[in-house]
């Protein structure tokens, strides 16, 4: 057993876990942040993506201990109160989700994609960058639209800040 200290969605937490515990299980089982999902166990589907120190990571492929001291943001932590993150709003407005299971990971990956590319996103880039996130419902059409839409909204909101 080890104690892992994290900042999750802005809140400092310490959890005692077996050394083999994965980050995703700390989030889901210990912190009850069940928005982060497990879809494949092999780092392929991306349903478990969260941000660690500002970068998208697959929380099913990382030991909790590797995240010791890190700043973790999950899907539950990106809206400002009732104000949705522009990526969340874009997924809703563009019907970029159906069953909702892959959605948290998609949104977290998509935010990271926009951050890394700034405003320079086109459809082909978005499709390539979503390589690590699998959706079985939407056929990706509306997810791609949502990410491109959100990239514009995020630029505007950054400019406003």
């Amino acid at each position, binding site marked *: 057993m080890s104690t892992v200290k994290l900042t999750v969605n802005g809140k400092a937490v310490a959890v005692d876990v*077996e050394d*083999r515990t994965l980050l995703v299980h700390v989030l*889901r089982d210990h912190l009850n*942040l*069940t*928005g*982060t*999902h*497990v*879809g*494949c*166990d*092999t780092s*392929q*589907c991306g*349903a478990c993506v969260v941000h660690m120190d500002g970068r998208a990571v697959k929380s099913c492929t990382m030991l909790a201990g590797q995240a010791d001291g890190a700043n973790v943001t*999950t*899907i*539950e932590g990106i*809206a400002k109160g009732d104000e*949705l993150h522009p990526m*969340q709003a874009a*997924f*809703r*407005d563009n*019907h970029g*989700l*159906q*069953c*909702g*299971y*892959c*959605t*948290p990971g998609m*949104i977290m990956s998509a935010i990271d994609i926009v951050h890394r590319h700034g405003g320079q996103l086109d*459809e*082909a880039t*978005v*499709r*390539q960058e*979503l*390589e690590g*996130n*699998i*959706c*079985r*419902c*939407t*056929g*990706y*059409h*509306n*997810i*791609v639209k949502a990410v491109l839409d959100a990239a514009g909204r995020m630029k505007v909101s950054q400019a406003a800040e």
Partner: protein
Amino acid sequence: MGVEGIGARVVRKEDKRFITGKGRYVDDIKLLGMTHAHFIRSPHAHAKVKGIDSSAALKMPGVVAVLTGQQLVDDKVGNLICGWAITSKDGSPMKMGAWPAMAPETVRFVGQAVAVVIADSKNLARDAAEAVVVDYEELPAVADMHAAIKAGAPQLHPEAPGNQVYDWVIGDEGAVSAAFSKAANVVKLDVTNNRLAPNAMEPRAAIADYDAAEEHFTLYTTSQNPHVARLVLSAFYNIAPEHKLRVIAPDVGGGFGSKIFIYPEEMVALWASKKVGRPVKWTGDRTEAFLTDAHGRDHVTHAEMAFDANNKIVGLKVKTYANFGAYMSLFSSSVPTYLYATLLSGQYNIPAIHAEVIGVYTNTTPVDAYRGAGRPEASYLIERLMETAARQLKVDPAALRRANFITQFPHQTPVIMAYDTGDFNASLDAAMKAIDYAGFAARKAQAKSQGKLRGIGVSCYIEACGIAPSKAVGSLGAGVGLWESAEVRVNPVGTIEILTGSHSHGQGHETTFCQLVADRLGVPISQVSIVHGDTDKVQFGMGTYGSRSAAVGLTAILKAMEKMESKARKIAAHALEASEADIVIENGEFKVTGTDKAIAFPMVALAAYTAHNLPDGMEPGLKESAFYDPSNFTFPAGTYICELEVDPGTGKTSFVNFVAADDFGRLINPMIVEGQVHGGLVQGIGQALLEHAIYDANGQPVTASFMDYAMPRADDVPSFNLSHTTTLCPGNPLGIKGCGEAGAIGASAAVINAITDAIGKNNLEMPATPDRVWRTINAA
């Protein structure tokens, strides 16, 4: 239609919880004192279970129990069932081998459970499972259908000699023979419809909770049809009578058919929760999903189509071998028979059809309905045949289709189905216009100058949805009726709860079903809630599959709404001292037509519950229910056209354009309909280019994770160009046909027709991987 009524692109009500991480899926639920189950599964495709030694595991910390198949037998828990009886051509019933939830004696596919460990945590259960020693005696296994039906093949079930489930026929063989004897041309084709793994992104899960004081079970499960689950668990498995079993299917992360069926794991979880006296949770991992979720498709077919001298189809004969896997899953028997062969007429006038379907057991995961279920196999076969015929007869593929289209409705096919309406020319025209079919030759020449092989492929699909008229399916062997139920509860303040037996696992019912209410009453959808997925709340229902929830489920809601409105009208008329016939409903008010007298809907609701001033003899309250049984199937149809390029050096396919023109009848929410089409198209494209659940000759699965099974990813597929043509379905009052499966039914033929057009060779199997395409290009 109003901003939130029928036909409006209303953003989904349910999205807020999903985009903020507040969805509530089975694995998100924790109960006090909950234990965790881990199944011990066979590593062999066929073996005798000689013994199970769990003594070491039981000594490990946190282990509550190790339960085996023999204990299920001792407790008289029933075997899994197949709910649709099929009769072979010799009059004998289908041959169903016994399928116990955990195998006491013999395992017949890799992944079949033999025991389960119950422990305080998932990790402890996994650890203990490593310490359980199962003594297997390996038996010869067979995974290939043709090998399985050969003399001397390993035999799976004593009940099914020769590994044959059934040998079923449909149609008039004599009429087909006569047609072929007079034919000017005969087109022959052998096709394989590749086996697929459904792969809903949420793995299956179950939490079972037994209340000893009440002798009552609660099951939280990933189900598309919780009431059917309760019925089957009660009536056939002896778990508990229905009034002592509550089944809850909360948010469910996709289904595509795979969550229709009752699987061993939830059965065992229920049984185990009573045995250990604590709640039991099981959550599958992805490899368990590959091993145990019912697979889809897996047909091998030889077909011949006969044409007269004017290129009119005169006959069709089909022989299909359908792989059932090791056991008959819940609706497996109906898929390659009544959901497949009844659609073999496609969109065409075919006077004589005969089909024979041989069901085969193999040492593989059971096969059942997967998005489209039989109809993709039929559509793929017919559309590959039409393309092959056009090439052989040297006519334009679109023109050959057009010359054979059914244009008069209703149309009785020779294979049971009576198409009610359609306009196949309209959808073909729309798709050809969208893709600039006329300009293709020039684009092909241009691509050739750049070293690329460009092809175009047409697919004109039809499906039978709105499943299904109960009497009709009963006469064909179904064990259940396929109506739907609904209840409309108006609260005293005028808010409305709609209880439905349909189940949403991505389809957006919480929005579209509210749109019907908004349309009829003029109230905002924020005043309406949809209640579903809980057998304690909704009395009964048949669930969601077969593109049935709008055509059948929403019609049931409409019927209940009509009853509620009728009573509300009487109350309003009484309050307004007007004649009931003069009451109209507009913008949330009941008005006396031609006057300014009106009463708001909430006041009508309040009057119903205060009961101070109701018409004489009227019961208080405002709540009505309805059961709706459709009169016929519905027949969504359309045309998909795919244009793509093949790189002859690598065999890699790149999409240029993909257009879809669908006729789904009336659309409730076009945004949601488009989403359904997008998702279906990618599942069809996935089958055509990427996906294949593969077994080696000994029955070992070689594609049991996302590392090995090629799921379509964002950069494998294009954006789509969609359009709709409309003929309203005459079979239901809303004119709805259904849209959930079309994409998966029509897309794969369009892709393969396009690739074979590009490379100039007709024989190409799915998935058309670059390797396979390259080899086909370079074959002698």
